[in-house]
């Protein structure tokens, strides 16, 4: 049964190929069926494999299915294989199950769009690539999935290609991650050179035995690989693409830019945590960067008016939390937050999509209002998601995972914990700013009703968001350790719990944030903020703190300048000079061919004399 694991990525891939080839020839409904069912089947299979796993874990708590030899050369080899261990198991569950519900949602959300089949083809391809990424046994295979998800993200962000802006956003997302990927590629190259293979377990064993902790090479390699992860996960300083990527359809944002792809960086670090442990400096860097990201995302989230941008910054921030966990070595906590974030952020995006579906794709929160009664389902779903995101105690999974995570951070570094708490407070403020603005106050008109393909995903995800957290609870809530026990074989034991005053502060911060948001909603501050033209500082925050402008100045403009200067191929011009010289000589020489006999005789005579003299006097 474990051997059927190859079907998990293969099914969505087959769906993508099928949809790609048949494309326009099949009815839209069939395209949706193919798209959703292929992922659904993969999800079912993943669940079955997981159940079998829990019933009887294979020896060594890992199962490797080698598929075929990719490259075998004297000094380098790579085998394509799929590796199931607790980490990848959790991730394939997250990807395929959430993926399935998002497909389902998409089927209704995208109805009537041009390129319906193309959409599902991309989405299936994305799921396949993402599954390959997490199942890969070899870094090079992982890199295939890694770039594959990047391309799918590019294609899906630019799905509505006729808008110039979408194309630019899509390009930006791809280029920025590509820059990061190149760093990762160089890291991979170093590993390949050092170990002759990129098989993950071989590399990790080799690294441990070859490199003492804190030495130079692991730091370089881990740093380079980390850059790749930071790019994919939209962490400072490579975060700029994520808000723009919201140009894609909302279910895409839910799947790619919230639940799965953007967490690939976290997965990478977790997968290679043995290597990262050899590079404590890099881990410190991760933690520091993560803290920055958390703060930046929270501040930027406060001033966004586009609901998807609010969510985008919240994603950035939540992944920042995960990296914060990674920075302190709390792999399990990061994974738990990853899974719980996938659920509630998908829920948030889907419910925001459900809202804008009924508002002609309006995304500005200040153009909404009072939807609490008009769209109760969307409201309920969004509210659950927001509670989870804000980590309101006990209500949703976000609380449990953030609690778990911050507890681990506290144990390592109280200062970072403080940043995390500050972030949690701000998160509460900005997400409930959105909740109050969208769902309360004066109401706007809506039309239509939801079909089952919207209702079901929202309901299921909301229930999951409420229930998932109980897999891992703090001591004062039962101390369940189900999740960390699952991961324990791969990542070591559960982290210690934080003491109760710490937990208390952690619980209080989001509530304070929500309270502030409510107060500002009550006195109309949010609405005024939306109506007023933003000041300099607000614009600075809205634009993601000037990173875009900075990059434009130091990368984009010089590049475009170079392009402009070189456009006409200066080397070509040099060769044209030669050509001109030849033509000039030609013209000069033919001047002498003037047909006059005397001139010719003179030439001959001069030539003769010169020759004779030269011969005689040489």
């Amino acid at each position, binding site marked *: 049964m474990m051997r059927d694991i190859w079907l998990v990525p293969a099914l969505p891939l087959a769906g993508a190929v099928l949809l790609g080839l048949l494309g326009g020839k099949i009815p839209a409904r069939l395209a949706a069926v193919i798209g959703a069912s292929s992922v659904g089947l993969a999800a079912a299979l993943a669940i079955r494999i997981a159940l079998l796993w829990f019933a009887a874990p294979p020896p060594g708590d890992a199962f490797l299915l080698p598929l075929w030899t990719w490259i075998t050369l004297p000094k380098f080899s790579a085998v394509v294989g799929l590796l199931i261990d607790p980490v990848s198991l959790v991730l394939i569950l997250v990807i395929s199950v959430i993926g399935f519900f998002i497909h389902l949602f998409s089927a209704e959300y995208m109805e009537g769009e041009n390129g319906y089949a193309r959409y599902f083809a991309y989405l299936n391809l994305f799921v396949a690539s993402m599954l390959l990424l997490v199942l890969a046994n070899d870094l090079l295979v992982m890199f295939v999935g*890694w770039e594959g998800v990047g391309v799918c993200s590019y294609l899906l962000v630019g799905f509505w290609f006729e808008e110039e802006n979408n194309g630019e956003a899509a390009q930006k997302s791809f280029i920025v991650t590509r820059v990061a990927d190149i760093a990762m590629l*160089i890291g991979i190259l170093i590993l390949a050179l050092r170990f002759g293979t990129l098989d993950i377990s071989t590399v990790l064993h080799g690294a441990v035995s070859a490199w003492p902790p804190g030495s130079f090479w692991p730091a370089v390699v881990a740093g380079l690989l980390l850059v790749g992860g930071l790019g994919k996960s939209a962490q400072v300083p490579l975060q700029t693409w994520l808000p723009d990527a919201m140009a894609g359809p909302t279910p895409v944002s839910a799947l790619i830019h919230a639940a799965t792809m953007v967490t690939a960086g976290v997965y990478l670090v977790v997968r290679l945590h043995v290597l990262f442990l050899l590079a404590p400096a890099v881990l410190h860097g991760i933690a520091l960067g993560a803290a920055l990201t958390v703060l930046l995302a929270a501040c930027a989230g406060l001033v966004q008016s586009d609901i998807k941008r609010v969510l985008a910054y919240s994603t950035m921030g939540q992944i920042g939390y995960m990296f914060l966990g990674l920075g302190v070595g709390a792999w399990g906590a990061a994974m738990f937050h990853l899974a719980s974030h996938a659920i509630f952020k998908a829920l948030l995006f889907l419910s925001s999509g459900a809202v804008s579906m009924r508002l002609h794709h309006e995304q500005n929160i200040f153009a909404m209002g009072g939807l609490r009664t008009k769209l109760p389902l969307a409201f309920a779903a969004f509210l659950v998601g927001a509670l989870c995101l804000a980590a309101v105690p006990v209500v949703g999974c976000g609380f449990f995972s953030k609690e778990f995570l911050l507890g681990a951070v506290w144990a390592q570094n109280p200062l970072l914990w403080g940043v995390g708490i500050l972030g949690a407070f701000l998160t509460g403020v900005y997400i409930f700013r959105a909740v109050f603005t969208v769902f309360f106050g004066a109401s706007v008109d809506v039309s239509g009703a939801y079909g089952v393909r919207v209702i079901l995903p929202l309901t299921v995800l909301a229930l999951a968001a409420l229930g998932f957290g109980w897999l891992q609870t703090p001591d004062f809530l039962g101390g369940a350790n189900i999740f960390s026990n699952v991961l324990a074989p791969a990542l070591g034991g559960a982290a210690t719990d934080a003491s109760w005053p710490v937990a208390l502060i952690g619980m209080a911060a989001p509530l304070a944030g929500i309270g502030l948001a409510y107060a500002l909603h009550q006195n109309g501050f949010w609405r005024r903020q939306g109506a007023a033209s933003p000041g300099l500082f607000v614009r600075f925050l809205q634009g993601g703190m000037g990173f875009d402008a900075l990059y434009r100045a130091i990368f984009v403009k010089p*590049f475009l300048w170079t*392009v402009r200067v070189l456009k006409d191929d200066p080397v070509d011009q040099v060769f044209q000079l030669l050509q001109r010289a030849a033509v000039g000589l030609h013209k000069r020489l033919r001047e002498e061919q003037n047909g006059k006999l005397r001139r010719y005789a003179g030439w001959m005579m001069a030539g003769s004399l010169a020759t004779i003299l030269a011969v005689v006097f040489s």
Partner: protein
Amino acid sequence: MSLCLLLAIPLLGGCLAWPADRLHPHLPRIISLLALAATLAVALPMLHGTSFWLADFSVPWIPAFGMSFHLGLDGMSWLLTVLTIVLGMFSIVVSWRENVEKIGFFHANLMWSLAGTIGVFLALDLFLFFYFWELMLVPMVFIIAIWGHEDRRIAAIKFFLFTQGSGLLILIGILGLAFLHQRATGVLTFGYFALLGHEPGGAAGFLIMLGLFIAFVVKLAAFPAHVWLPVTHTQAPTAGSVILASILLKTGAYGLLRFVVPLFPTASHTLAPIALWLGVASIFYGAVLAYGQNDFKRLIAYTSISHMGFVLIGVFVCNALAWQGVVFLLIAHGVSTGALFIIVGALQQRLHTRELSRMGGLWGDLPKLSSFGAFFVLAAMGLPGLGNFVGEFLILRGAYGAAPLITILAAIGLVPAALYSLIAIQRAFHGPVREARAIADFGWRENAMMLALAAAIIWLGVYPQPVLDVAAPSISAMGVTP
């Protein structure tokens, strides 16, 4: 003997195709296609040889100079020969519906050019190699000059001058090599094996190597010897562009691999740093200029320059991994760039323009064409899982040990690759529709071609081992460190 067939069938096919258009306009196409199919049928089974040289054929040719008509086939030349034949077939099919004047002569030239190229890949006598080297150009010049686009005259002349002028350096080089060898051993020969291992030392050896290097780099179209390439590729008819980009460029790399490094190990080692930096310069220069182009074909032409920078690096780090990567990249690039030229050719046929500023939003009108276009652009960009990535990765992996800085720069060169790839997709297929058009998408013929090429590039990307296995013996025989 079958080696001679590999040359004779396309040559004769060309001769037959020439007058055949008097009988029926499609006849030259059919004859050419059949001839290439026959050549392929001869070539394919040759892989199952027992020895390292799959086949060998030698008769004296010009005994006065010790030149012989010596053909030989090893794994590397087999791969490139098959690539030539297969892409030759594509280039015939691609113009199937086009209204080509003098269609017989067109196909004759196409076939002769292919025959010359196959000869280049098979020749094991240096002068014979040079003979084919020059021979393959002449029909190509005709193809560009007669059936090219608006600036075909300039393009043909530039192509002719650059490749011929540099070709003379090869002539001087091999003559010098042979005479030096004669002086040392008393035997005048142009045989590859006789000259192998007799590198002339000192300045003479270096200069001879330099001559060959320059000629091959011109053909490879690496910076700064690339200037003939953009205009030539742009102006050639689609079939010509396909052959030029997919096959003819490869002869330059082949020359470097087969002749320059093995014959002059010491001298090429001396030159290697310069060659590597030229490779890096090519990667960036090609990429930056590609980004700035408005002519779609020209853009692709510049991407070729960028990719050939990788090839140059791979060749001159001189180790088996990189060389595997080079051979692999040659094949993958042949397929992906060939496909791109077919696509742009199809676009030009439909839109009567190659200007990107007049495209945009084509995905709506031409979903199939556009998706194939995006696919192959991404393949050319080096998307992992597709053929080009394997080649580039192996080159980088091979190069890293020898020249880390160069490798890192080359890897960074993949970023501008993404830039020009995406801008091409954006300007051609995405974006707002700028001009109203009523045009047909790919038909079944074009779809079939594209699917075949796409399948090939995916196969190369996910299961490259058979190709690597075929090339391995040749590469290990060339005396590079494993």
